[in-house]
């Protein structure tokens, strides 16, 4: 599981790659910590290379979203594949995230 965070066009973009299973979750959460402190910028999570996500992964996404919403920021999810989108759908996460 690889996580890369870049600032592109004034937005924080997180590139996720691999399987975000329960075992990978703590490490990923740590890697994505900087996103919690972002202020005044929108966050884009690029899931183009994300193959799998468990509920532990989803919790990280939810944490980022809840923090951003407190600061009136937006979290966008980009390039999500159908399998992962299905997991978002059954958990109702597709209702709370914005997809681009």
């Amino acid at each position, binding site marked *: 599981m690889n996580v890369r965070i870049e600032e592109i066009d004034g937005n924080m973009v997180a590139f996720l790659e691999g*399987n975000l299973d329960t*075992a990978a979750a703590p490490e990923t959460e740590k890697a994505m910590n900087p996103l919690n402190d972002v202020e005044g910028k929108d966050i884009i999570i690029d899931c183009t290379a994300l193959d*799998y996500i*468990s*509920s532990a992964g989803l919790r990280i996404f939810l944490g980022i979203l809840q923090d951003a*919403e407190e600061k009136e920021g937006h979290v966008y999810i980009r390039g999500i594949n159908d*399998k992962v989108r299905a997991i978002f759908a*059954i*958990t*109702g996460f597709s209702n709370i995230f914005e997809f681009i």
Partner: protein
Amino acid sequence: MKKMIEFIRRKLSVRVSLWVVFFAAIIFIVTLGILFYQARDIVRQEAVSRATQILDKTSLHVEGILNRVEVASNMTKWLVERHPNKADSMFVYSRGMLQNNPNFYNCSIAFEPYYFQDKGRYFSAYTRFIGDSLRTIQGGSDSYQYFFEDWYLMPQLLEKPCWTEPYMDHDVSTNTSEMVTSYCQTLRNMRGELIGVINISLSLNWLSQTISAIKPYPNSYSIMIGRGGTYFVHPDTTKITRQTIFTQTLEQPDTALTALGYAMQRGEEGMKHMNIGGEDCYVFYKPLGQTGCSMAIVCPKSDVFASFNRLQNSVGAIVLVGLLLMLHFFIRIITRELNPLRRLAHEAETIASGQFDTQLPDFQRVDEIGQLSHSFGNMQQSLVKYIEELQDATAQKASIESDLRIASNIQMGMLPVKFPTSADRDDVQLFASLTPAKQVGGDLFDFYFRDEKLFFCIGDVSGKGVPASLFMAVTRSTFRTVSVHESMPDRIMTTMNKTIADMNKTHMFVTLFVGVLDLPTGRLHYCNAGHDAPLLVGAGVGELPCDANIPVGFRPKWKFSLQEAHIFTGTTIFLFTDGLTEAMDANKSQFQMERVNDVANRALANHQQEPRQLIAQMTEAVHQFVGNAEQSDDLTMMAIQYIKQQSDVQMRKSIVLPNEIQEVPRLNAFVDGVCETVGFNEDDAMQIKLAVEEAVVNVMKYAYAPGLRGDVTIEAASNDVRLKFTIIDSGVPFDPTVQSEVDTTLSAKERKIGGLGIHIIRQNMDSINYERSGNLNVLTLRKKIPHN
């Protein structure tokens, strides 16, 4: 006639009057009958005595006439015999005779031929009335040689004076004839030699008139006959001297008349009752002195009884008219008296037609009709009041019934209506029926499926009707609510009991059986709270053993016990309420458990233990037993047949992992391998992997106390139909299936971090099933293998 009878039957007044008049008529008829019968006898006796008197009088009168003739004859005879030689004196004597006796027809003093030499051969001084004047002539001549006549010869031959038979006296000078009878006696000189005969005649016509003038009755008449029976006097003058009393009997034999003739000839006196000329007559007869004649008075009976009959007819007519008047007035009086009754009847009819406010007539009478009217008025008032009450009650009843119907619909709506059959499921089929004794009942049953488990219950609330139905509704809701969070029947029951008992102020209770059938394994967990033990109909028929728990609802702290049994494929669990065993026939005898067992055994023998068949047979048996008797209690039955066929296992793999998160990739690799072996596509494989990971991570995180090492065993098995993962650990008992559902519609802020795992498992797998087996938690996830 029929109309008349109908009229009489309808009219009380006519009927009563007819009866009264009928009896009056009988009394009159009997009284008058006796009276008239007696009176008739008296009248008859009176008639006899009267006729006899008249006859005596008449005969005396006639005898008087005859005596006068004889006396006058004797006197003249004496004169003639004193002076026999003076021929001219004879004319004087003869004339004097008639002068003194104007009733005599003629008188002749006739002498022997040549008695008076100077007078020639014939000398007869003959005097007769011509009109009112007397004419005296010498009567003898060649053409009338009197001394050959009967009247001249008879006294000589008999040597005594005698009356001749009637004969025709012909008067040559006037050429008139008259029927006469004569009294003749001889004239003799001093020497006793016959010198002549003195003859005095009486006209038969006059005699007849004299006699006939005596009439005791208007139509009565007299007859007189001579010695030979010849009629001398008869109303039919043609018969006089020409017929005898016997003439008629020659043509028409008439013994009565003949007897009368003989009796009269013999000079008898008496009375005979006979028929003359077609008429009933009394005949009174008596001889007339020495003349040899006999007279009779014929009195027609109709005459004798004429006045009597008139009286009888008058009285009869008066009685008849009186009776008719009586009938008329009776009818009128009774009709008038009954008039109020008729009005009352009319008003009653009006009231009967539904017009209860009809004003009843006020008769102001104190007799029975007045009383009736009064009572009727009271009845009307009561009726009006009663009808009003009845209308109110009916309206209320209709309202209650309507409510009850709605309540019944609601109650029935609570019960499951769709029963799974073998066409719907391959593991279980089920059927149930509930028949309330009243519109709403206190029985309940329920079932539903959750996580490859069948949750079911059957119960019977104490009492019947609306209260029981409300309690039933509460019980059923509580069952649903509680069983969502609890999978073990004892825990469900205990929680339900506490919930219900806490809010139960009415001391009602419910006997309840709660069962949870694990469909993949056929393992049945159950808890019985005082309910009838269900039957198992499979290899044989037997009761499911049940602990003695108290019913639900009154002891909140009671701990209910759990029981367990294995249900073999094909076995039917038959649950029922006491409405089945206690169903009563008309004689109040009960259906009894023996009959339930019999029906179940019969069904089993006929391979008809499928839920619908079993319940249908049980229902039919109960109906036959109960017959027409009213259903005494709610009747509920539920049959659950386990039909799961265990398929052959085609693949079996397992892996044992420690409770460390780092092992998840190994788990995922294991699951990927399994999915690939079984043939799931990538999307399905990822869903399964995710579900298994969530389940296993759950165990790794929570099954064992922090820092305590433990193992998680994951077994994968598949057959033709399904892939099954069984996740086993020896940690604390934990049932993830009773965790509350996450709400996926909440906003990001409101969403909780936890609870997602079980949700994902449910969404991604076909079933999730938790069992605590010994000291192990056993969680089974299943996914159907797609066939292409």
